[in-house]
């Protein structure tokens, strides 16, 4: 008994000593994120290295799965032991936390680095709430690129990238005739959803897109134009293979890599799959962000928020994180590993791949930037709309009924 007690005492003493020494480390920052895949952890390592070089001590806290990581962050904030910084998407996911006064702002860093000048408007609108900066953006992901296999296009006799939706459908027909699966498709609700985003933005146009997601305009949803868009979206279903339901996105990408399928509509994280298969943009595969030279560019991405902590050392660490994450050098190094593009356009793009360079060039044209739906609507409404889209895609529901369901969801949201 005494033996056990003394052992316990020893363990406690060691624990306290370790805890104490950890506290003594300069600018110790525990960063909670969900980047666990190969490419992702290589990318987050760039952030950690940059932070350590800037005089901080990075404590990595990775939790697989965005949902799990976000709920762990919220639970720890509620429980009173928050991490120094926690990852969220550039979206409305952290709005409730701001309302409840659970986040520190980083206005000091934002003012010092002119965030209001260098950051694109969709991101600014997402992180600047009531005049305060509550999150630091780390990347821009575009969730709806078109990726195509050059050999498959050649086999089907397609010589140029489609410039209009009609040309795109014609190309899909050619692929089908050549015995290739025209559209590599992963039939999971979130993939059906981003395909709908792409179709709405590129075929319906930015105006219709903003009327749905920003204005929640019931009249637009009831219009024949919107129903025509739904019908045209559903037309894509003719070009997927019977094995598509519940296919993972990377399995669909693999179909493009092997030339078994022609095109995939997917976010720029798909580049990681091509890179792993030793394929280069412009050589074995091609990418286009939409139809024609004026196509809109969906802006999504990741941010870190800073839980409310009063300890001045931790606040200092939070501000150092915000400074380091947004510096041009960190941004280029990180984007290269992550497959995203930098949050600022004043960086050296030579190190980036062809598709990312194209993305940075497009981002310089403000009129082409379009905020992703997560930035405009609540996670709740987004989920309801996702249910409607997946039902419409997978059943014989009419465009009329789907439009009615969307109108009803907008009213509830």
């Amino acid at each position, binding site marked *: 008994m005494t033996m056990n007690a003394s052992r316990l005492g020893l363990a406690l003493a060691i624990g306290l000593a370790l805890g104490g020494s950890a506290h003594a480390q300069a600018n110790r920052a525990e960063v909670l994120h969900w980047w666990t895949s190969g490419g992702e952890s290589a990318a987050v390592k760039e952030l950690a290295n940059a932070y350590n070089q800037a005089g901080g001590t990075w404590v990595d806290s990775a939790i697989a799965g965005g*949902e*799990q990581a*976000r*709920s762990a962050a*919220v639970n720890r904030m*509620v429980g009173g032991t928050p991490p120094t910084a926690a990852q969220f998407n550039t979206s409305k*996911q952290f*709005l*409730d*936390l701001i309302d*409840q006064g*659970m986040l520190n702002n980083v206005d000091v860093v934002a003012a010092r680095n002119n965030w209001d000048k260098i950051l694109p408007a969709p991101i600014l609108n997402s992180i600047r709430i009531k005049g305060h900066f509550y999150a630091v953006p780390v990347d821009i992901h575009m969730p709806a690129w078109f990726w195509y296999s050059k050999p498959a296009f050649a086999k089907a006799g397609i010589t140029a990238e489609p410039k209009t939706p009609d040309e795109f459908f014609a190309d899909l027909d050619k692929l089908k005739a050549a015995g290739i699966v025209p559209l590599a498709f992963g*039939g*999971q*609700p979130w993939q059906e959803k981003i395909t709908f985003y792409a179709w709405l933005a590129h075929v319906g146009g930015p105006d219709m897109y903003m009327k749905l997601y920003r204005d929640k305009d019931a009249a637009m949803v009831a219009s024949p134009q919107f129903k025509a868009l739904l019908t045209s979206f559903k037309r894509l279903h003719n070009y997927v*293979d*019977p*094995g*598509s*339901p*519940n296919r993972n996105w990377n399995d669909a990408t693999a179909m493009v890599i092997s030339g078994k399928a022609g095109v995939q509509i997917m976010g720029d994280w798909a580049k990681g799959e091509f890179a792993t298969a030793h394929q280069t943009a412009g050589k074995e595969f091609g990418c286009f962000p939409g139809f024609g030279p004026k196509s809109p560019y969906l802006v999504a991405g990741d941010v870190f928020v800073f839980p409310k902590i009063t300890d001045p050392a931790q606040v200092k660490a939070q501000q150092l994180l915000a400074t380091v994450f947004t510096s041009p050098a960190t941004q280029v190094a990180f984007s290269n590993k992550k497959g995203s593009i930098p949050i600022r356009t004043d960086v050296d793009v030579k190190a980036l791949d062809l598709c990312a360079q194209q993305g940075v060039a497009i981002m310089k044209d403000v009129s082409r930037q379009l905020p992703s739906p997560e930035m405009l609507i*609540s*996670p*709740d409404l*987004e*989920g309801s709309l996702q*249910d409607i889209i*997946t*039902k419409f*895609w*997978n*059943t014989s529901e009419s465009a009329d009924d789907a439009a009615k*369901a969307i109108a009803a969801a907008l009213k*509830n949201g």
Partner: protein
Amino acid sequence: MSPRKPVFRHLVAWLALAPMVATVLWVYVGSVLWSMRISVSSSRTLPIGDYVGLRQYARLFDSERWTLSLQNMALFGVLFIVACLAIGFLLAVFIDQRVRGEGVLRTIFLYPYAMSFVATGLVWQWMLNPELGLQSTVRGWGFANFTFDWIVRQDAVMVAIVIAAVWQACGLVMALMLAGLRGIDESLWMAARIDGIPAWRVYASIVLPMLGPSFGTAFVLLSVSVVKVFDVVVAMTQGGPGLASEVPAKFIIDNLLVRANIGLASAASTVLLLTVLALLAPWFYARAHASRRAERVARALRASEPPPGVTA
């Protein structure tokens, strides 16, 4: 050993039980009450203490996905429980014939239950996928018209899920039934053999009724897994294609974690709990009633003819 005073004995028993009682009261009952409280608030990402009446419940039953989830659970429940009980019983009877290699077979049948469905569900997903699994293999053998695509069909996907779930759970039912079968006195079989009663008739008229408690236990275990069915759906279809295989537990988790809607998720779990209670209450009542009656009968029997060798 000297007999202790009853009060002291009770005290010791209560002390031993105290941690468990506290756990039940605080963790289980407390969480249930807390969920019910949240379900009448407007909570989104974080719990909020306001009061909005039954708004979340109204929204819940307005939601097509929720009603569909309940229907899917009912369909799954009926098919799954009936198939598990039938197959589990037949497997037990088969093994009870003193077949050779009984130990090996028992392990094989029970093994699926020991494995996580997150892993085996993936294998099922691949096997049932029309382009990777069974269908494409058989077509590869030259039967070009062979079709087995239930997992991607709106109207058949639940059946595909039931197949995998039965595969996993029927071994457990077999083990329970086998224990029951082994508990049946050999003399019964001998008597039946002397009377020249065919074996199937003995199983149907004598053994089955005697296995009542085993069926009861299996039924309760299976029912619980029906209400909380989640992993098999997530591993095999993620609720798809479309919404065709959505289940209530997935609705709750989605709203809790992804859609930042704690209020709606709490309302859904409350409804689920009430449904289960409404289904189980009559059954518990009947069982309590039956056991009380059995006790009375036993007491009456003991009183009329005390068995030899037992002193009062």
